[in-house]
């Protein structure tokens, strides 16, 4: 079992997570979800680390960009996380993500949204193959609106 996203408050940018192993529920701001670490110590942008915030709980989940245990919800989490980083993330992470997603410095909000979606889509496909990307057009439209509102 895993720690999986249950709900998201787009106004506060806070996720409610469920630690399925211990049935712990906790809230975490999207900025508190770090990328993983490669074996050479560099940032692994294809991994998000979610640690249970319940005191003394050791459970940590390393989610891959393909979605792993929960493809639909985890891929959305990557999209939100990526968009947060390119719009409000701290340097130098923001610059690294902008470069990773091929987003120009002068890109406007719509371009950032499109580039982030395309980038995550490509990385999902690269990891798990064609058609692993689980988000349908309606979901993408809703996320686009959400991102515009938060930009």
């Amino acid at each position, binding site marked *: 079992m895993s720690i999986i996203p249950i709900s998201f408050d787009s106004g506060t940018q806070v996720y409610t997570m469920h630690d399925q192993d211990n049935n712990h529920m906790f809230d975490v701001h999207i900025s508190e979800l770090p990328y993983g670490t490669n074996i050479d110590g560099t940032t692994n942008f294809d991994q998000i*680390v979610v640690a249970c915030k319940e005191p003394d709980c050791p459970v940590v989940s390393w989610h891959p960009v393909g979605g792993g245990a929960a493809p639909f919800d985890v891929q959305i989490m990557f999209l939100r996380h990526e968009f947060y980083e390119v719009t409000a993330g701290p340097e130098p992470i923001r610059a690294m993500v902008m470069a990773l997603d091929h987003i120009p410095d002068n890109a406007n909000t719509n371009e950032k949204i499109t580039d982030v979606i395309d980038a995550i889509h490509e990385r999902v496909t690269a990891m798990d193959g064609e058609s*692993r990307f689980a988000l349908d057009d309606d979901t993408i439209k809703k996320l686009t609106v959400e991102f515009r509102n938060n930009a």
Partner: protein
Amino acid sequence: MVSAPEQQSALTTTFSNIANNVVSQLAAACAATDTSVALLSGTAASFPPAPFYVSCEYEVMWCTSKVGDSLSVQRGRDGTTASAHPSGAIVQIRNNAGLFLDAYQAIHDLDNGVSSGSALPADIAYTDKVQSFTNKTIDLVNGNNTIIGAVTPDPAQLVYENILNNGGFEEWGYSPSTTIAAGTPTSGVKTVNATTYWIMNSTNDSAFTVSRDTANTDPSNPSGTNALLNVNTVQANDAVTLYQLITKGSQIGLFDLNKLIASPLSLAARLKLVSGNISVSLGLTYWDTNTGAHGLNTPFTALSGNTYATLKFENQILISQSVIPNGIYQMQVALSFKGTGQVALDNVMLIIGAVASIYRPKILYRPIVPQMNHAVNGGFEVWQRGTTFNITGFTGAFSADRWQGGHSNSSGTLAITADTSNQDINAGSYRCAAVVVAGTTDAVSNAALLYQQVISTTQTEGGELRNRVFSFTMRVKCSIANACRIAIIDATNNVTSYSSYHSGGGQYETLACTGLLAYNCSNGQIRVLFEAAGTYYVDNAMLVVGEVPYPYVPLHPADELNRCFRYYEPGALKPWNGYGALGQQVSMWIYWKGWKAVAPTLTKVSAWTSTNINGGSLQISYNHPDGTNIMGVLTAAGAFSIGPSATVDWSAEANP
């Protein structure tokens, strides 16, 4: 012995009647031109009835009638010359040449006529007689498959194989009665299994029930049961249909449908109108991957009377010679009904041939190698995540491996437990899933269910299963009537094929359904639905390709566990020791026991024990279907170790 007049009436040649010892005399002289001669009084009685040859002196005459002692005659016959005869001349029947020549000529004409065929009698339809043909070859059709006459083959001599299964409605593997309730005028087509091999559908606000019946069996063929259909169609263009699918790769061979190309098909069904006014149409349809569906139907025919009648659809070339053989993937035989009333249906027979045959049952020889179960952990034997789960609302949380659950009512709950007391023991089960459903629960907005995703967006996981018909069976025990059923759902196309409901009899029953997961399906599921609060036991799910439901066949436990490892796997850290420098990064590989469907989420579930490792630096760096990498940074130069920590230190979860 026949009399002479009867002989004459049966012949086309007029022969002379004859008699022995016939002699008289002329009562008066006659001229050569007279056509009537008078005999002595009272002597003509010895002459036979006309016509006959009669001789007087050297002349042979042909008597055409005899009245009293007067003979009407044609003169100068049989090669003689008409001449005058005196009174008292002898008149008698002799062995004149004409008696023999007439017979010789008739035999000669008959010989020629038989040889040329002109002397054969005209075709006669013996409508009131039974005709027996022994040692005869009877050609019922000509070279163009045109039927010569209406023929009822002798069932003892002509043997056809019924292409249809359960055409006699003797098998009722689902439920003894299945109803599709009336919807709205625009609610569309609803489909459900009626009985073994037969599927029923209804359109819009039509209602349709198919029931097992023994009170209206077909008396003309041996039959134990029939199907009793309650039909109620509302819209003029709507009908309800009972149909059977014949799909390659299941009860017939992979390319057997190709054998129907350019072959005549004949369908016969026995129907009896029990009540009401109902008309019926027979139909044959096939599907081609290149060009879609192609069908032939009879017009709707009104049923009448309260006795069985045979409806036929004969000599139909359903699949033309121009069809590309390997594109044919499915064929359907359908009976569609319109109207309101009750119909008894029995003994449906489909043959390859130009003339419909009387019913014969088909015995299906199941393959020796059992079908592969496409439901993972169908027996609910593998519970790697635990044995007790409580699900509130529709979370899709996993319980037994590969089985997810949810309650459409956000406050509704499912308590799912690995149960070793109520399993389907007759099938050799060790565990089942006990499901306790609570909260407001119904069939629509508050439905509760367990489900398994068979096809997802990930093409490598189930992609090859698309565009196939599946049959899904499951063993269910409950004590609530009409509350539990199973389904195959193509969520992409919003098509659901349901089984009938469990009767609520408190015993295990086999529920079964058959449905198509279409070529574009990206979310194909099998489901067991709980439509009322209560306790249910589910076990032995079997999902096979084809329209034939198959009894559950377990995998070897090792194989089943390996299947489950593909999606979920818990593990313990292996002892790992070494030496290193301060700040040195060390790493350890973990290889999964089973190659994952996708890159998994790895979850650390215990406090990993370590020495000389910065606990905060313990990370996994690598999500991959075949394994991962755990790394850490030494806090001092010298020996370090990681794990083991607990029975389960991590889990890898990969859900396509």
